[in-house]
């Protein structure tokens, strides 16, 4: 079954297919500490995209020759469940999943104090349960929470959001349809305290001015996601505190 792609992505009122304004994020739900076995875990729903992230470690590396003498190594696996997309995806890792595993790892690495734990490994697993665009960004957002949940010391949280161009308009947080039919997609991630960009990719065609506009829109989107991430980390503790300390 393949869906028919709609004709127009932005209507006369300037609204998108799901009713959003160009610079609006999809509804976001974040939950921390959802798996009991993992050292840290978190779950995200961004529109229809649903992703689960888990962290194991730091723990000793096997085989030993992979270990670094002065810091921990970071390993990341981005994987899509076979039922996560319209047409069933084979469980075998695809080239796209391998590239995304690499860029997600590189997006999170600058935030972790790897040098505190020599000769160990920190493993991050990002499982896409349902994909509707923006999976690598949502994956970074939720993996950052899982790392904090695991008690791994970090410089800052990493928040991520994609911007792009659809029907000639620069938009924020593209859905799958917007990405497929649009003119450009710019996945972006940063550590907000120092405005350090840890992920930046682009495919499509943008003039340098359009790129700058999309870039700035992504930065704004990330700041909103950052405050939601912080709330999610505190949520569990705030709830208990309020319940017992009347």
């Amino acid at each position: 079954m393949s869906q028919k792609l709609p004709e127009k992505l932005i209507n006369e009122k300037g609204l998108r297919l799901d009713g959003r304004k160009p610079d609006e994020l999809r509804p976001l739900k974040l939950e921390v500490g959802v798996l009991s076995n993992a050292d840290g875990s978190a779950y995200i729903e961004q529109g229809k995209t649903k992703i689960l992230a888990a962290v194991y470690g730091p723990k000793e590396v096997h085989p030993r020759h992979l270990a670094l003498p002065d810091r921990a190594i970071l390993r990341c696996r981005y994987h899509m469940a076979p039922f996560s997309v319209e047409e069933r995806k084979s469980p075998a890792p695809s080239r796209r999943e391998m590239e995304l595993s690499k860029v997600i790892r590189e997006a999170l690495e600058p935030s972790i104090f790897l040098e505190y734990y020599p000769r160990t490994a920190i493993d991050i697993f990002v499982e896409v349960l349902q994909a509707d665009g923006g999976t690598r960004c949502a994956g970074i957002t939720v993996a950052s929470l899982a790392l904090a949940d695991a008690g791994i010391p970090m410089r800052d949280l990493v928040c991520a959001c994609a911007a792009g161009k659809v029907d000639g308009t620069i938009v924020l947080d593209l859905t799958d349809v917007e990405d497929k039919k649009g003119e450009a997609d710019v996945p972006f991630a940063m550590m907000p305290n120092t405005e350090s960009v840890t992920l930046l990719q682009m495919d499509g065609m943008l003039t340098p001015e359009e790129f700058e506009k999309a870039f700035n829109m992504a930065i704004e989107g990330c700041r909103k996601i950052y405050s939601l991430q912080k709330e999610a980390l505190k949520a569990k503790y705030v709830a208990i505190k309020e319940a017992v300390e009347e």
Partner: protein
Amino acid sequence: MTTSTIVSRVKQKRIAQLLAKGKRIDGRGLTDYREIQIETGLIERAEGSARVRLGKTEVLTGIKIEIGEPFSDVPNEGVLTVNAELVPLASPTFEPGPPDENAIELARVVDRGIRESKAIALEELCLIPGKKVFIVFVDIYVLNHDGNLIDASALAALAALMNTKVFNYEIENGEVKIKSGYKQLPIRNYPVAVTFAKINNQLVVDPWLEEENVMDARLTITFEKDGKICAIQKGGSGCFTTKQILEAVKIASEKSKELRKLVVKA
């Protein structure tokens, strides 16, 4: 898995000191490319080929054209597929085996440049709509790794494509029959990748191997012929400031024009 080569602290310091003065160990300016040599047509068995030497980095790209089935969602378009191999003889850090994440990333970034700029008019590669199309295989073969494989590979891929001949054919009873003679593969755009390394908070263009071993992060920006950006890829475990990104876009726009002249000439 990438194995990072450990660079001596003395060397790291020297690289940093020189950079602070706007210089690099090999005497280049911060935005200078190494010497570039492009040769085409060296592999006669391939439908197209090119070898690029970027300083001591050497990449050979071969193009093979086959007849195959189109993808179901674009039944009237030819197929482009880009693959890269980091051949073990090219570097002590390359291991034999299936493409690792670096080879895959390299192939996909070069692919993005060609695909998004629509350098190949894929609609013109349809033989029997929905049934038979031309498949263009771009195979990137890294022969010597001395830094900046992405830019060298992108140049080699573009030069090879510009050098590619497609065999003539005719349709007989719903079958594709190959005739004698060739025609050039129609190339509509000339995407050029420009890669930066961030070292000690400074950007340098076309990092060579020793610079890559000490860099914090890498940024590749691909421009097409009319000045639009068609691909961007940040790599490495460090980060860039937002200002550095916008600055890199400006520099890359200029440098891509310089590089494009070299390829179109070759």
